[in-house]
């Protein structure tokens, strides 16, 4: 907060004797200005690609290499074209199904394993945790070949299951949930045990509601990660019907003639679900839920 912040109800006439009006050239004020400028530049950098995406989607093919932000003759033809093209709709559905199923699976299983690692004492617990963590250090590129061979021998190539099986549980999610379950006091769990819940019920009815903010964060991460995933879906799919959105969009046009205006149109449409997901889940990210049941 800046040094000149006022609080509700605070009356300027009643400021203490040490108070004086700050001048524009004050050191503190200058710092503030610089800070705002840096943020502004950062903001512009972040928003430019999105502006160009939208702008390009409104252009005719002949002007896409014209860098003007405002199209000469803005039009919506690209949108009609993409939406009427059956393939786009198919990819969209593929992506939704895969991202949603993966998100659900991660929210359930990452938290189940995270909870177990956090709240139960059993031999080898630490070893299991380290093993899970260490998989975080292996990059996707290295895993793609084994995944492919595996899918091939199981007959999973070119199926929804083939696209999503590697991501159904993640080490990151497990780690995140374990850390969050540490914030759930054991007293809640023991109280529930006395109240007669079994261990699975305790997890589902007591612990899970208490880590809702973490679940929401995890859901956002996983959904976005899968929505934008490219390499693995590209490798595991063959038929156009199985493409996910990113793979499908990249296939608009061929090597010689990339149809940027259509790609950008598809990209613009495909950002909508991510916005929706974010809006749904971010309201769960409220701090302090856990503490409310404790102490005075």
């Amino acid at each position, binding site marked *: 907060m800046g040094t000149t912040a006022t609080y509700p109800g605070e009356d300027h006439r009643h400021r203490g004797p040490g108070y004086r009006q700050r001048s524009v050239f004050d050191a503190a004020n200058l710092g503030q200005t610089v800070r705002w400028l840096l943020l502004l530049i950062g903001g512009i950098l972040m928003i430019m690609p999105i502006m160009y995406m939208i702008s390009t989607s409104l252009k005719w093919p002949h002007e896409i290499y014209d860098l003007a932000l405002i199209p000469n003759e803005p039009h919506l033809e690209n949108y009609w074209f993409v939406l009427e093209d059956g393939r786009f709709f198919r990819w969209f559905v593929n992506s939704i199904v895969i991202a949603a199923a993966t998100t659900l699976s991660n929210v359930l299983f990452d938290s189940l394993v995270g909870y177990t690692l956090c709240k139960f004492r059993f031999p080898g617990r630490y070893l299991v945790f380290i093993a899970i963590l260490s998989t975080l250090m292996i990059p996707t590129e290295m895993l793609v070949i084994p995944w492919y061979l595996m899918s091939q021998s199981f007959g999973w190539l070119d199926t929804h299951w083939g696209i999503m099986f590697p991501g159904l549980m993640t080490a990151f999610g497990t780690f995140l949930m374990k850390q969050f379950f540490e914030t759930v*006091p054991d*007293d*809640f769990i*023991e*109280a*529930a*045990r*006395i*109240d*007669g*819940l079994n261990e699975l019920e305790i997890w589902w009815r*007591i612990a899970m*509601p*208490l880590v*809702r903010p973490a679940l929401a964060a995890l859901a956002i991460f996983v959904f976005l990660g899968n929505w934008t995933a490219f390499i693995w879906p590209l490798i595991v799919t063959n038929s156009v019907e199985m493409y996910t959105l990113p793979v499908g969009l990249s296939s608009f046009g061929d090597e010689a003639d990339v149809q940027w205006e259509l790609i950008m149109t598809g990209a613009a449409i495909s950002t909508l679900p991510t916005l929706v997901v974010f809006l749904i889940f971010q309201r769960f990210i409220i701090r302090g*839920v*856990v*503490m*409310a*049941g*404790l*102490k*005075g």
Partner: protein
Amino acid sequence: MAGLDLRNLVKAYGRTEVLHGISLHVDDGEFVVLVGPSGCGKSTTLRLIAGLDEPTSGDIEIADRNVNRLEPKDRNVAMVFQNYAIYPHMTVRKNIGFGLRTSRLPKREKEKRLEEVAAILEMTDLLERKPAQLSGGQRQRVAIGRAMVRDPDVFLFDEPLSNLDAQLRTLMRLEIKKLHQRVGNTIIFVTHDQVEAMTMADRIVIMNDGNILQAGTPSDVYYNPANRFVAQFIGAPSMNMLPGLVAPDGVRLRNGSTVDVRIDAREGRPVEVGVRPDDFILDGPDPFIEGTVVVREPLGHETLVYLETPAGELTAKAGGRTPPELGQRLALGADTASIHVFDASTGESVRRR
């Protein structure tokens, strides 16, 4: 409702033994307070009774049945935690109703019990609130309510008042006591506050270092402490201890004077004479030690007086209106009946009564 029996309970965490074989019988409907300094094993004892931890050895019987192998939910006990542990994501109604989940009562009956409990705890208006919208004392009552609806054989309270401010504590103390008189269940109540212990208990159990040092009625442990620890733990300010040696006619103090008491100990054995600040008679007949007033703490109706004496610093109580002056010399004596004597090495009482 039913009593409770602990037989030779031992609990070790890894190699460290924290309970060294405690035995205790609690009568049906009795209000027992476990009291002792931090880390003495009070919570551990409760957790063993509740079934949240397994004893290393020994037996626990509730209502004449051995519960060693039973799950917490099958023991018919209810526990109120120090930090309440009411579920923040549920309304008060759900929280209290949670205690009835395992009960086989028909739904209507459950509903009725819940309303009854809410009425007793004066929470009927708060039933639809979430814990975040309650004050500390109200949360405490929800926690008690959740325990109450189940009508358990034994109530376990683990320092339930320690998070409340002094005024609310006194109030809740009274509430719990009234509640006990009304419902009559067996209660085991843990605290490290000896005032709480004295005021609430039918029987006080004093623990230290994983052992039970004495169990008795409040007046019993106050007037007849079995050892030095109990003597100094119960009563505020703490009992004064004056070192001395056993002599034929009583105890010879270091300043040469003799305290006239009969004791069960060999002559020449080092002992400590214990006198409560209230029991000192200032400038009365037969004083056995003298001292100079160094600090006074007026409390209104009385004044605490700290004296420098040959036996170290002693505390005495004087009247509130005309307390002794700073620097004044006072002779201290005490009624024979109010004097305690403890063996200096074992700490056991050697006073013959």
